[in-house]
C-alpha cells in the first residue's frame, strides 16, 4: 500500500513530464501499470476534449456550408467532408506528420506542428469536424418543416431565426449520433503515438504505456485489460455527460414521450 502510494506520486503525471523520469525497468507491479496507463489517459482526454469542443464550431459551419445555396461553398464543404471521411485516420496522421516535417525544414514557424500536442490535435480536429459536419447536415435536413414555418410566421429571419429555431433543433436531432461520434473520437485518440508523431521522452498516451508493458513483460493479459477498464469508464462518463446535455436540449418537449436516447446507431459509426 505504501509502495503503491509512492508509485502514484512518482508516475501519476509522468505522461506530461512531471515526476520520476525513468520508467520502471523490471519487476513491473500491478500498481505501476495502473498508474502509468492512467497517466497516459491524460493525453487521450486532452486530445478528445479539445478536438471535440473546437470541432463543434467548425462542424456547424461545414454543415451549414453543405446546405448552402452558393455553389462554391457547398462544393468546398462537400470536398472537405469527403476527404476526411473517405480516408483512414491512420493515413491522415502519417501524411500530416510528414507534411509538417517538410514544412518545418523550410519555415521554423512550423516547429511545434511536428509535436503530437499540436500536429495530431489539428488532424483530430479536422477529422471530427468532417464526421460531425455530416451528422449535423443530416439533422439539418430533417428539421420539421413546421418549425421553420413557425419561425417565419413569428417574423424571425436571418441570424435570430438560426440562433433561436434552427440551431437548437438541429442539435436536438443530431445529439444521439453526436454522442456516438464523441465516443469514437476518444477511441481514435489512441492512434496518435502509433503514427509518425514521436512520444518525446516517453511521454505517451494510455495505449503507448500499455504497449510498453506488454512488450516488456511479454504478457498482454494485464496491461490491455487495464486499458480496456479505463476506456469503458471514459465511455460511460461521456454517455452520462452527453445524456445530461441531451436532456437539457429536449427539456421543452413532453417528457413522457419517447425521446431519442443516446444509443448505438449503426449507420453513423466511423
Amino acid at each position, binding site marked *: 500500500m505504501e509502495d503503491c502510494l509512492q508509485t502514484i506520486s512518482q508516475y501519476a503525471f509522468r505522461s506530461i513530464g512531471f515526476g520520476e523520469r525513468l520508467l520502471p525497468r523490471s519487476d513491473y507491479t500491478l500498481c505501476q501499470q495502473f498508474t502509468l496507463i492512467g497517466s497516459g489517459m491524460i493525453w487521450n482526454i486532452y486530445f478528445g476534449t479539445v478536438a471535440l469542443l473546437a470541432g463543434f464550431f467548425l462542424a456547424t459551419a461545414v454543415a451549414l456550408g453543405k446546405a448552402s445555396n452558393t455553389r462554391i461553398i457547398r462544393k468546398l464543404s462537400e470536398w472537405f467532408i469527403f476527404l476526411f471521411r473517405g480516408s483512414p485516420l491512420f493515413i491522415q496522421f*502519417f501524411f500530416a506528420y510528414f507534411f509538417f516535417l517538410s514544412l518545418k525544414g523550410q519555415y521554423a514557424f512550423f516547429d511545434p506542428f511536428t509535436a503530437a500536442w499540436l500536429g495530431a490535435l489539428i488532424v483530430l480536429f479536422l477529422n471530427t469536424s468532417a464526421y460531425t459536419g455530416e451528422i449535423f447536415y443530416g439533422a439539418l435536413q430533417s428539421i420539421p418543416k413546421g418549425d421553420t414555418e413557425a419561425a417565419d410566421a413569428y417574423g424571425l429571419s436571418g441570424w435570430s431565426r438560426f440562433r433561436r429555431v434552427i440551431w437548437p433543433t438541429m442539435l436536438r436531432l443530431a445529439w444521439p449520433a453526436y454522442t456516438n461520434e464523441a465516443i469514437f473520437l476518444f477511441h481514435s485518440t489512441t492512434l496518435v503515438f502509433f503514427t509518425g508523431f514521436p512520444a518525446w521522452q516517453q511521454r505517451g498516451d494510455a495505449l503507448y504505456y500499455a504497449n510498453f508493458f*506488454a512488450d516488456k513483460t511479454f504478457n498482454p493479459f494485464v496491461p490491455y485489460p487495464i486499458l480496456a477498464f479505463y476506456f469503458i469508464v471514459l465511455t460511460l462518463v461521456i454517455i452520462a455527460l452527453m445524456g445530461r446535455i441531451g436532456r437539457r436540449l429536449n427539456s421543452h418537449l413532453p417528457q413522457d414521450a419517447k425521446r431519442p436516447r443516446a444509443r448505438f446507431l449503426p449507420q453513423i459509426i466511423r
Partner: protein
Amino acid sequence: MGFYWSFVTVLTLLAITAPLSLTFGFGGAMAARSRIAPLSWVGKGYIAIVRGVPDIAFFLFFVIALDQGLEYLRHHAMCPDWPDAIRQGNDFIVCQDAKLPQGNAPQWVHEIYGFSLAVFTFAIVFGAFAANVLYGAMRAVPKAQLETAEAYGMSRRQTFWRIVVPQMWVYALPGLGNLWMVLIKATPLLFLLGVEDVVYWARELGATKTPRFTDYPHGDWRMYYFLALLVFYLAFTRVSEIVLDRLMRRLTKGQATSGGEAQRRAAT
C-alpha cells in the same frame, strides 16, 4: 515490387475478413437474442466490450494473446512432462515442438501465419460490430410478419430461418455498408500487426535514400507516398459507396419500408 504486392495483401485481407466477420457477427447476434440466459449474456458482453474499447488496443492485444494461447495449448498437448513453468518472470517459454510456426520453417510460413493471425483479429473485432448491426436488424423485422408466421404454426426456429433471416438484410444493409467502409479504413492498421502492408512499404521506400545504398537516391519522399495512399483509399471508399448505393436500391425494391414506398411512387 513489395509496394505493389502490399496492395494485393490489403485486398486479400478485405476479401477474407468480410465474410468471416459476418459469420462471427451472425453468431454473436444469434447468441445475443438467444433465450438461454448465459448464452445471451455472452453475446451481449462480446458486443459491448469490443465496442467500448478502442479497436487498435484489440489488435495489439489479440495478436500476442492468440499466439501465446495457441502455443500454450500445443505445449500441453505435445510436451506433457515439461518440468518448468511456462511463464517465468518476463519470459514465455514453451518447448521447441510447440513453437508456432516451427523455428526451421521457411519465411513464407511465418508470413502466412502472421497474416492469418491478423485476419482472425480483424474478424473478432468487426464481428462484434456486425453482430450489433444484425441484432438491430433482426429486431427491426416488422412484428406483424412474426405473428403471421406464428399463426401459420411455424416453430421459433422455422420463423427465424424462413422469415427473419431473409427479411433482415434490407435493414442491416446500411449498417453493414458503413461497416465495410470502417473495415477499409482499418486496413492500414495491419502495419501495427507486423504484416508488411502498404504503410510499411510507404515508410520504407519513402525514407531518405543515400547514393551509397541504392541506385536511386532521393530525399524524404514519405509525404508523397502517403499522399498516394490517401488518394488510393479515397478512390476505394468512393467506389464502394456507389456500389452499396446501387445494392441498396436493388434490395429495397418491393419492401415495406419508406425507401421501398418512395420507389413504388416514383415508378407509378
